[in-house]
Structures are given as structure tokens and as C-alpha cells.
């Protein structure tokens, strides 16, 4: 019969007094306990609980009408509702964004982080962080001994660190052998391309590669992070969330590390110990190891605090909207020519990337089922103003490109600008249609997640093709 299962499902409800039957108060107490228990499951929010409770009450009323006493009606209604674990799991799959906030690491992962520094932690995080730190030192010593150029180290810095982060993620997410190999492909490929390229030391193509390669390799982390589910929109959104949170954690660790090193230098000064030791050994190793540790913190600690990236986005979106709208109006009135110089495109690239960040994190943190609100309008103002400003700059730039000529820096800046421009224009268009009630919000999410490979492709072009076009100058 149903009873043992139902009793398990409604778990913590204390043993009912079957012999005397039950009054309505008892039923209310049972329902409220059931409600608390459902509410404590990951992935289920307050409105869902209201809805499920309503369902349970409807069922109880119908069963009571069919002649059951409240006690029996309750047990059968709970049994019909099905396993709450399965239910919570289904909700969690549907709302992975919500999960990301409430956080449900799987049970074993939770016990892992509560036991802290066990063997699991070392194989999944600790050893990889140490390996990254060692790799940086070895590379520094080898190039230092050969009295080589600092340029090699600069270009290869990300190749010395990010593969270890990829390994740590792959280990933690339990990748198959095939997925491990696929994860390694972009890193090996990049290492070959970058090191066979005969760069002019310190030339602009080399500096461009050094600047773009870390971001390109960051995209290569998507595979271990998403456990190979590259096409899943929800997993791609998780990758975006992960990246934002990682930046914040890394910044915090860097601030703490800076204070630590600064104090150490001051405190050690009277002892006469050479502080260069700290700068050459502690600093680079700490910076490399922190890359892996910050990623672990993002995944392990997301249940402890509310995510920061969406909060910062909420705070800064209106401020940027005001600033950008003001700038757009000013430029439209005064014209651009007086202010225009060669550096301006770089400044506007930075602006576009910041606005892109606001849009992407605004999108990732939003509950897709919520109707359009003021935040969506504010965001549209910010994006619209940024687009207007950028189009003005681009028009001026294109008008003068003949006079200024193509250089690697200008091509890279122009390309980045166009890639982001297309993304924001698409986002603005969908956002207008969403505000008009023409498309559901998930189309905006879909646009952002579908566009991610475009960024990776552009970065790959800058790293692999651009230097070739400019003869590695």
C-alpha cells in the first residue's frame, strides 16, 4: 500500500495519532510542516510552494469529499504529489539561474566543502594551484637563465596558468577521457601557434596576442566547466555567471594579496631581508595559484553569499545609463571632431565592453518569467546611448581611416568594436520587441548565449591570423 512511501515522503512530520483520527488543526499543522519541508528544497521558490500547497489542499478536499478522514486524505495527497526530491530536481533543471543563487551543489560536493581540506580538495584544487605557481616560477627561471627576453614570458603567461585551471575544473566535473582530450586541444593548439610565430620582440602584434590570448583561453575553459554540454543554453549561461563571479573573487584576492605583500615589505625592512625576494617569488606564484583558487571559491562558496556580479550590475546599470545618455546628447550637439584623436577608439572599445558586461549580467541574473520592468527600460537606455555614441565614433573613424592607415592595433580595436556593436544592436532590437510584448525573454538569453562563440572566433583571429597579415611586426 501507499503508506510507507507516503510516510517517508512527508518525512519529518511526527508520528500521527492514528487511533483517534485527526481534527482540522492537525491537518493544518501537517500541511504547514510539509510546506516548510518543500520550501527547504533547492530550486523551489515561495510562489512554487504556494502553488504546490494549493494543489495539495485541493486534493485533500476532493479525497475528504470521497469519504476519507483528513489524516488519510493528507497521506494520499502527499503520496500522489510524488517524491519531493525528484520534484526539486526537476525545478532545479528548469531554473538553473535560481539554483545558482540558492545553490545546490550535489550532496557529495556539499560534504566535500564542509570537510574542507580533504584529499578530494587537493586533487581537485590544491595540487593544480601549486602546479600553476610552480610552472610560472620554472618559466621565469628558465627564461631568466637564458637571459632571454621578457616578451616570451608575457606572451605565454596565460598558457602557464590557465591549463591548470582547466585541469582543476575537468577533475572536479568528472570529465570523460574524450572530454579531457578535447579540453586539451585548444591549449596545445594555442601553444604551438604562439610559439612558432616569429614575432618582432615587443612589436604590436606580439602585444596584441599577449592581450587577447588569456581571454581566448578563458573560452577554452567552457568545455571542462560545462562538462562537455557545449550546446546547452543553460550551461552557457552558467559559464557567463562563472566568469563574472571569478573576476570579482580574483579582484578581492588580489587586493588582499597586495595588502599582505605591502605589509610584509614594510615589516621585513628593519631586518634587512631583501624584499625583491617577495616580488620575484611570492607575487607571481600567488597570482598564478589564485587563478585556480578563485575558481574553486566561485563554485564552492556560491551557496554562502549572494552573487556579486548581478548586484553590481543592478547598482551600475542606471548610473551608466545616465552617464551614457548625457554623453550621447553632448556629442550629438557639440560634434565629435574637436575631441577626436587616435586613442578614442580604444576608449570606446572599453565603453562597449563595459556595457556588454552590464547587459550580459543583467540578462543572466534576471528571472526569465518576470514581465518587463523598469530595469529593462533603463538597460535599453544605456545600450541605446552606447550604440549612438559608438556609431558616431565609427563614422568619424571610417572617414579618416585613409589618412590614419591600418595598423595591427587599429584593426584589432575596430574588429572588437564591430563584434560588440553587432551583439549590442541585436540585444537592443530584441529588448525593444520584448518590452513591446512581442517576444518572450528567453529569446534575449538565447541571443547572448548563441553569440558567445563569435567572441571566441574574433579572439582566435587576432591571435592566429592578424599577426600573419602584418608580418609579425
Amino acid at each position: 500500500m501507499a503508506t510507507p512511501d507516503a510516510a517517508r515522503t512527508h518525512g519529518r512530520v511526527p508520528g500521527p495519532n492514528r487511533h483517534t483520527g485527526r481534527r482540522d488543526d492537525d491537518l493544518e499543522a501537517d500541511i504547514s510542516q510539509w510546506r516548510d519541508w518543500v520550501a527547504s528544497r533547492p530550486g523551489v521558490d515561495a510562489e512554487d510552494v504556494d502553488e504546490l500547497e494549493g494543489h495539495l489542499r485541493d486534493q485533500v478536499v476532493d479525497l475528504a469529499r470521497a469519504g476519507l478522514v483528513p489524516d488519510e486524505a493528507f497521506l494520499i495527497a502527499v503520496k500522489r504529489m510524488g517524491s519531493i526530491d525528484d520534484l526539486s530536481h526537476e525545478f532545479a533543471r528548469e531554473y538553473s539561474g535560481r539554483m545558482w543563487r540558492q545553490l545546490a551543489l550535489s550532496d557529495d560536493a556539499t560534504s566535500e566543502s564542509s570537510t574542507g581540506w580533504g584529499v578530494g580538495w587537493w586533487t581537485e584544487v590544491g595540487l593544480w594551484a601549486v602546479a600553476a605557481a610552480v610552472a610560472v616560477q620554472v618559466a621565469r627561471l628558465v627564461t631568466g637563465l637564458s637571459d632571454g627576453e621578457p616578451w616570451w614570458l608575457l606572451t605565454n603567461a596565460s598558457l602557464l596558468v590557465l591549463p591548470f585551471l582547466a585541469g582543476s575544473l575537468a577533475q572536479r566535473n568528472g570529465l570523460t577521457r574524450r572530454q579531457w582530450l578535447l579540453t586539451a586541444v585548444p591549449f596545445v593548439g594555442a601553444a604551438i601557434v604562439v610559439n612558432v610565430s616569429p614575432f618582432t620582440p615587443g612589436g604590436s602584434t606580439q602585444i596584441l596576442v599577449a592581450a587577447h590570448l588569456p581571454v581566448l583561453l578563458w573560452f577554452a575553459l567552457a568545455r571542462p566547466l560545462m562538462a562537455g554540454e557545449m550546446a546547452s543554453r543553460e550551461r552557457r549561461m552558467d559559464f557567463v555567471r562563472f566568469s563574472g563571479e571569478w573576476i570579482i573573487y580574483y579582484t578581492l584576492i588580489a587586493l588582499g594579496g597586495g595588502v599582505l605583500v605591502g605589509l610584509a615589505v614594510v615589516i621585513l625592512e628593519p631586518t634587512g631581508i631583501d624584499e625583491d625576494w617577495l616580488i620575484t617569488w611570492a607575487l607571481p606564484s600567488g597570482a598564478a595559484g589564485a587563478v585556480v583558487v578563485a575558481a574553486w571559491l566561485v563554485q564552492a562558496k556560491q551557496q554562502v553569499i549572494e552573487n556579486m556580479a548581478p548586484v553590481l550590475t543592478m547598482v551600475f546599470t542606471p548610473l551608466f545609463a545616465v552617464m551614457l545618455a548625457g554623453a550621447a546628447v553632448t556629442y550629438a550637439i557639440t560634434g565629435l571632431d574637436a575631441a577626436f584623436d587616435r586613442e578614442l577608439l580604444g576608449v570606446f572599445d572599453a565603453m562597449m565592453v563595459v556595457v556588454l558586461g552590464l547587459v550580459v549580467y543583467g540578462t543572466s541574473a534576471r528571472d526569465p518569467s518576470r514581465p518587463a520592468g523598469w530595469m529593462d527600460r533603463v538597460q535599453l537606455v544605456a545600450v541605446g546611448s552606447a550604440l549612438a555614441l559608438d556609431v558616431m565614433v565609427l563614422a568619424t573613424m571610417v572617414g579618416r581611416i585613409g589618412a590614419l592607415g591600418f595598423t595591427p592595433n587599429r584593426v584589432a580595436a575596430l574588429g572588437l568594436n564591430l563584434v560588440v556593436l553587432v551583439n549590442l544592436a541585436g540585444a537592443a532590437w530584441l529588448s525593444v520587441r520584448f518590452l513591446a510584448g512581442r517576444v518572450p525573454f528567453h529569446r534575449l538569453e538565447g541571443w547572448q548565449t548563441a553569440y558567445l562563440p563569435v567572441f571566441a572566433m574574433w579572439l582566435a583571429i587576432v591571435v592566429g591570423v592578424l599577426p600573419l597579415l602584418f608580418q609579425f611586426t
Partner: protein
Amino acid sequence: MHIDKDLVAASATPLALGILAEGENYGYAIMKRVRELSGGDLEWADGMLYPLLHRLRRLGYVTTEWRTPPGERRRRYYAITDEGRAALADRQRQWAAVARTLGQAWGGDPLPFALGEA
């Protein structure tokens, strides 16, 4: 009759959309309608209906609204959208094709159940 759970899962979306195409409704009543239509053959755990309905909402197939009709408790009502109707029509075509194929494979007759008018 026991129906395989993969088959139950595959039919859940068109079934829910089909019931909502009859008119807006709330979860418990949708569940009751499923039991009634299938004569009890299709058994879901009641709770699983909600993640499904929320997925349909995210895809824009249904809209939702909390409402308290006079004399009843507050409930979340689901109503099908034009996109939902289009998705339903699409699913009906797919099921009709499946039924036709199975019918022919099993002896040349179409399966003895009507799948929309598709």
C-alpha cells in the same frame, strides 16, 4: 494498463498544451483532466506537472496569473498563447506522423486513435 515512462514524458507537453487549448486552467484541474481523459492510464506524480508548466511559460507557450475567483482559494492560472498553439499544432503533426508510421508497420491500418485533424 502500464504506459512506459518515456512515452508518458514525451506526451506530457502536447497533453498539457491540448488541455490548455480548451481554456485557461490551474494545475490541479489540469491534472484531474489528464486522469479523466486517459481513464487513469496515464499516471504522473502530480508535482511533476509544475516544472513542466513553468518550462512552457519560459518558452512563451503559456502565460500565468495568480487569481482568486470568488469563494475559492488563490490559484495560479495558465493560459495558452499563440506561440503555444503553434507549438501544439506542430506536436500534433509529429504525433500523427508517428501514429501513421506505427500503424503501417503493424499491419497497414492507421492506429485506432485520432490525433487532431492533422
